[in-house]
């Protein structure tokens, strides 16, 4: 009966359970009557995007050393790249968009096919990671929004090994996999994340984004939200890890795996967006 309410910060009692999110769902044979009783559990929202053209090449380093100029060029490129496609050189230097100055949540679906936003974030071991460095090295980059206390994330690391399996599968194969925690509360704590990383035998780093700037720019609402960036700097896929948000499908379709395979084969990524699912990213509530 009441109009929309904003989620408040009143009485921010954090319950004990979130550290140990028991009863996390696991993939199992569908005992529930989705087809008859709960048709809404499917997420038939995948859309097909045309493959974007390759990016134009500009002088190396500008994007990083001259942010304002880079921003202007990136914006220009955002608008121009489809109209004036150019081939990347073998040296493979890319220009990315700069992170937006405003802290508004982008719409991930609308980013697919556009140029990725460059960022530098520090991981839980103190190492810095710059997106454009990996792309310039010819790598495909996978971003995985992460929260060690989110039951969905927990499930993909403990009930199944969805993420670790893909990291192992593609780790030697020109793919850089970066987990990103955009949480501003204690779920974004470096020690908690590093402890979890070791406990879950994660071979990939967890980058900390406490201001949420990177998460907001990429329109990440959920943990996990997945973004696959082609080596040319184009966002090739954004969305859920798979079509199993209900954890009910025995054989889910993994959109990230399909996107990486397509990029490695030099072919078109058929599904550029599929609805992400999971917990809300714990952005700052200011």
């Amino acid at each position: 009966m009441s109009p929309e309410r904003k989620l408040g910060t009143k009485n921010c009692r954090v319950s004990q359970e979130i550290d140990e999110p028991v009863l996390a769902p696991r993939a199992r044979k569908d005992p529930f009557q989705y087809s008859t009783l709960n048709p809404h559990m499917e997420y038939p929202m995948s859309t097909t995007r045309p493959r974007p053209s390759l990016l134009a090449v500009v002088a190396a380093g500008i994007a990083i050393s001259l942010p304002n100029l880079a921003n202007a060029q990136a914006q220009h490129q955002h608008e121009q790249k489809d109209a004036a496609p150019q081939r990347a050189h073998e040296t493979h230097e890319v220009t990315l968009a700069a992170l937006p100055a405003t802290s508004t949540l982008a719409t991930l679906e609308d980013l697919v096919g556009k140029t990725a936003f460059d960022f530098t974030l520090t991981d839980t071991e103190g190492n810095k990671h710059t997106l454009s460095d990996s792309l310039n090295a010819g790598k495909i980059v996978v971003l995985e929004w992460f929260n060690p206390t989110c039951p969905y994330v927990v499930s993909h690391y403990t009930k199944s090994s969805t993420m670790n399996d893909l990291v192992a599968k593609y780790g030697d194969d020109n793919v850089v996999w970066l987990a990103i925690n955009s949480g501003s509360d204690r779920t974004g704590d470096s020690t908690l994340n590093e402890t979890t990383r070791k406990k879950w035998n994660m071979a990939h780093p967890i980058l900390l984004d406490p201001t949420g700037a990177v998460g907001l720019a990429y329109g990440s609402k959920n943990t996990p939200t997945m973004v696959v960036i082609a080596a040319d700097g184009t966002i090739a896929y954004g969305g859920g890890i798979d079509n199993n948000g209900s954890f009910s499908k025995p054989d889910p379709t993994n959109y990230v795996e399909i996107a990486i395979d397509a990029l490695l084969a030099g072919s078109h990524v058929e599904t550029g967006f599929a609805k992400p699912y999971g917990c809300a990213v714990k952005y700052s509530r200011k």
Partner: protein
Amino acid sequence: MFKTLALAFATLLPLGIPGQVGAQAHSKSSDLHAQPRLVAEQMAAKPGQTLWIAIDFTIEDQWHTYWPGTNDTGFPLQTEIEVHPQIAAAGDLLWPAPHRISSPQGILDHVFEDHMTVLLPLTISNNARLGETVSLQVSMRWLVCKTACIMESAELSIQIPISDAIGRPSPQTAAIFERARSRLPQPITDSDPVTITQEGPSLTLTSTPAERLAFYPSENSRPPRNLLRDGQAEGQTLTIEFRESNDPILGVLEVWTSPTESLLYTIHWPPENNEPRAQARDQELSSFTGDR
């Protein structure tokens, strides 16, 4: 309709207590943030009639569960219904209209707070015999969230005797069903004060008695382009831009006629020639009301 019982949660659950008649609560489990119970509208059921069961959740203060429509996070109650097919058949669940909530960044969900009551129709077989018992078992799991989310689950059962003397619901039971039905959206009829017009990708919903309007899209609806921006409006008009798609626009329209009172309508656009399911449900409801 007799389904194999899901065993996956058996070790995690306090089990319901079968074998009691009428409204049956879950066994005490105070650690659940959303506490479910099954409530039958009557103490007994007649052959051939529709008996309504409420799956009634009491939700802890500041926590919420999810509506099975368009949401950025979470997922709704999942149920497995088990009832002996020679005695009764379970129909589709009727969901109440949700509340819309959003975070400061614009993560938007449609949820239930305080209470969530989902109605389940049981059609009693004409062949059911007096003295037999309808034994209903409902296995459920759901996500309940505050700042963090927890998966909870339960298995509830209820037994209702087949009898000619169905009795009258207690005031408490009647109140549960009255509250639940007050949140059920209804199909728009010619006499309702709602008009819908489409212009290009945008749908405009107008209602003259409205102080405020909100649209809650179904999961399988043509998706709005910016639900955060377009999903609600003050005044008498709500214009929503949709993405290109061949899917129909489906969802619930809430029309506030005062700060505390609202009307709820199902939206199906373009309109269908007829809505057999909605009509059937109306008939079911009215015939049951008559039976009382």
